[in-house]
C-alpha cells in the first residue's frame, strides 16, 4: 500500500552559520568568474578548467565532506551543498573536479582501502585530480547491469578487456572508476560485477577516443581496454559487490542541485531580456518558471538534508531529477516563445543569444545523463509500490 510519508520532502532550513559560507563563496565567485563569458558559464558542470578547480581546492571547498584523516575537510554535507549550488548557479567551470568531488571521492572514502584513500583523496580535495565514470558500454545503457567489459585475475593483478562509452572527460582524466565483470555471475547479471580504480595516465592498453557531441565539441569518449594490466590493488571495494557499490555511486550522482540548475543562467538572462516589454502573459510565464525554481530548490535542499541525516533519499532524488530536467528542458523553448531573438553559436550574437544557442543544444542530454527520465520514472513507480 502506498505510504504517502515516503514521498515527503522534509523541510530543511540551512543553519544560519552557512549563510556566512554562502557570502564567502559568492564574493569569491564574483571575482573569479570575471574572465568567463556568459556562454562559457552556461556550460556549468561541462565547463572544464583545472586552474579554477585548484583555486576552489585551495579555499577548502572541494572534498568538503571527506574524512580529514585522508585530506578531506570533514565539513557537513550541507556546507558542501551550499558551495555546490552557488558555483552552479553562477555558472562556474566545475567540470574538472565535478565527478571526483561529487561521487568518486565519496565512493573511495566508503569502499576504498586505507592506501587508496591516502593516495587519492588529498588530490581530490586540492582540485588536482580529475575522475571519470566508466559505467556505460555500447550495449549497456539503461540496462547497466548487463555490462560485458571484463577484468580477469592474472598473476599479479587484473587484465581488462572491453569498451566503455560516453565516458565524460576520459581523454583528460587521471582516474576512472569502472564497473567491470569479474566472473560469469551465474544466473544473475547483478552478481559478478566489481568496481576498479584505474589509473588512466599510467596504464598501458587503454585508448580514449573523444566522440564529438552534437555541438561539435568532444567531452565524452569511447574507451577501449586491450589487455590493460591493472595492479591487484586496483580493485575498489569488494569483488562481486560492484553492482551494490555502483548503485551507491549513482545515488551520489543523482541527488545534487545540478539536476535543476543547468539552465539557470538562461532563466536569469531571459528575465533581463524581457524587462522592458513584458506583457502580463509574459510575466506570468516567467513567474511560473520562477515558482518552479523555488520549488525545486526546496526539494533539492530536502534531499541534501536527508543525506546529511543519513536517510536514504533515493526516491526523492529521482523525483527532483525527473522534475528538474523537465524544467531545464522547457526553458530554451520558453525563451523563444517570449523573445524574438534567434539562438546563435558562441562568438556571434548577444550573450543572451549565445547562452540560448548553447543550452538549446545541450538540453536533450539533461534527461539522459545520470539515468534517463524513463528509468527515473521506474524508480519512482517502485517507490509507489507498483513495481
Amino acid at each position, binding site marked *: 500500500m502506498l505510504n*504517502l510519508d515516503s514521498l515527503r520532502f522534509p523541510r530543511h532550513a540551512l543553519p544560519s552559520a552557512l549563510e556566512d559560507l554562502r557570502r564567502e563563496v559568492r564574493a569569491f565567485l564574483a571575482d573569479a568568474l570575471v574572465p568567463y563569458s556568459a556562454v562559457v558559464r552556461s556550460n556549468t558542470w561541462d565547463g572544464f578548467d583545472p586552474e579554477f578547480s585548484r583555486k576552489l581546492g585551495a579555499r577548502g571547498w572541494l572534498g568538503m565532506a571527506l574524512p580529514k584523516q585522508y585530506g578531506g575537510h570533514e565539513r557537513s554535507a550541507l556546507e558542501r551543498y551550499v558551495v555546490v549550488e552557488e558555483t552552479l548557479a553562477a555558472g562556474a567551470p566545475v567540470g574538472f573536479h565535478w565527478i571526483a568531488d561529487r561521487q568518486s571521492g565519496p565512493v573511495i572514502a566508503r569502499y576504498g582501502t586505507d592506501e587508496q584513500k591516502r593516495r587519492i583523496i588529498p588530490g581530490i580535495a586540492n582540485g588536482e585530480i580529475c575522475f571519470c565514470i566508466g559505467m556505460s558500454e555500447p550495449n549497456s545503457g539503461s540496462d547497466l547491469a548487463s555490462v560485458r567489459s571484463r577484468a580477469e585475475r592474472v598473476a599479479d593483478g587484473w587484465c581488462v578487456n572491453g569498451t566503455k562509452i560516453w565516458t565524460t572527460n576520459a581523454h583528460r582524466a587521471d582516474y576512472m572508476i569502472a564497473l567491470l565483470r569479474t566472473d560469469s555471475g551465474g544466473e544473475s547479471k547483478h552478481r559478478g560485477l566489481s568496481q576498479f580504480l584505474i589509473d588512466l595516465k599510467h596504464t598501458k592498453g587503454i585508448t580514449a577516443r573523444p566522440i564529438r557531441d552534437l555541438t561539435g565539441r568532444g567531452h565524452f569518449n569511447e574507451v577501449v581496454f586491450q589487455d590493460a594490466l591493472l595492479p591487484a590493488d586496483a580493485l575498489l571495494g569488494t569483488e562481486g559487490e560492484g553492482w551494490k557499490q555502483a548503485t551507491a555511486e549513482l545515488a551520489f550522482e543523482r541527488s545534487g542541485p545540478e539536476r535543476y540548475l543547468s539552465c539557470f543562467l538562461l532563466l536569469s538572462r531571459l528575465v533581463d531580456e524581457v524587462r522592458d516589454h513584458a506583457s502580463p502573459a509574459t510575466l506570468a510565464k*516567467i513567474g511560473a518558471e520562477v*515558482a518552479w525554481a523555488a*520549488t525545486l530548490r526546496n526539494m533539492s535542499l530536502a534531499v541534501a538534508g536527508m543525506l546529511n541525516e543519513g536517510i536514504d533519499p533515493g526516491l526523492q532524488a529521482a523525483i527532483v531529477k525527473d522534475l528538474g530536467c523537465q524544467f531545464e528542458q522547457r526553458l530554451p523553448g520558453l525563451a523563444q516563445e517570449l523573445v524574438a531573438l534567434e539562438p546563435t553559436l558562441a562568438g556571434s550574437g548577444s550573450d543572451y543569444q549565445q547562452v540560448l544557442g548553447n543550452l538549446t543544444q545541450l538540453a536533450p542530454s539533461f534527461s539522459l545523463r545520470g539515468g534517463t527520465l524513463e528509468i*527515473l520514472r521506474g524508480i519512482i513507480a517502485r517507490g509507489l509500490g507498483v513495481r
Partner: protein
Amino acid sequence: MNELQQILDDSVTRLFAARVDREFLTATEEAGFSADLWSLAREQGLTHVLVSEQGGGMNAGWADAYVVVRACGRYAVPLPIPETMLGLWLLERAGAPPVDGVIGLLPVPIALAVDGTFSGDMPRVPWGRDATAFVGTTDDGRLVCFDTSAIAIREDSNLAREPRDDVRFERARPLALQPLDLPLDAVHWFGALLRSAQIAGAAAGCLELSVRYTSEREQFGRLLSQFQAIQHHLAELAGGMASVDTIAHAAFTAVDDDGFRTGGRDARFEIAAAKCRASEAVEMLTRISHQVHGAIGFTYEYALQFLTRRLWSWRAEFGAHGQWGEVLGRTAIEQGGDRLWACITN
C-alpha cells in the same frame, strides 16, 4: 514533523478518514453544512490552531497549521476550517475580540463610508450563508469584522458545490475595526496560502486513489499498475503532488520565519510561488488521475470527483497561476536576472 505536527496529523486523520467518505460528501452536497462534523472539529481545536493559549487555542505556528489545512484538502472536508482558522488569526493579531462559529472571509479590501458603515457586494464569499461573522480588511489596511445583522445572501457555489455566496452589506457597522500590520490585501495572500495547502492535500488524495485503483483493476490479464505507461503516469502524479506539497509547506514556514516585512524579500515570495505552482499543477493532477481511472472516475458514484472538482475550483480561488505568475514575474524583473538566485535562496 515535530511532535505537535505529528499529534495534529494523527488527530485530523482519525477525525476525517473515518467520517468524510463518499456517502458523507454526497449527503453534504444535498443537505449543506454539517453541524456535527463542525462541532467535532471545533472540539479538537482545529479552527483554533493559530489562536493563543489565552484565547483558547493551540498557539501553534503556520507550519503546524499546514498539517490541518492539507488534511482538509486530502479528505475534501466540506467545512470552512481553513477560512475560520485564518479569520481567528487575523482577529487576534489585530487585537480584536474573537468570534464564535464560522468566519466568512471578505476576499477583497472594502471601502467604509464616512459614517463608518459599509454598503456593497462581496462576491463569492466562502461559506457566506453559514458564517456568523465576516472578517476582512479595509482599503486603508485595517482589520474589519462584521456580524450578520445587515447582510443579504445570494447563494452560489463553486464546482465542488462548496458555498461561495454573494454577500450584500447594507450600512453594516463593523464589530471591530483595528490597525493591522499586514498588507491591505492580506486576505488574498493568506487565502492563496490556504488553497495551496488544500491543493497539496487533494493531490495526495488523487494519488492515493489512483495507486489503489490501478493496483486492483485488471485488463489484458494484468493489473493496470503493471503497465509501464500507467506506472509513468503515477510517477508523474507523485512528482506533481510532491512539488506542490514542498513549496506550499515552504510558504507556511516562511510566514512563521519571515512574515510580511515592509519592503524587501519576505514570505510573499513563497506564497506566490506556492499558489502559482499549486494552481498550475491542477491541470496535470486532474488529467492523469482521471485518465488512469477510466470511466469509473468520471462517475458521481466514485470518490475521485470530490477531489478533482475541488482542485478545479481551488485553482482559481484567490488567484490562479496566471495571476500569481505575473506577481512573481514582476518580482523577478524588479530584482533583475543577476539577483534572481539570491531571491530564490533568500
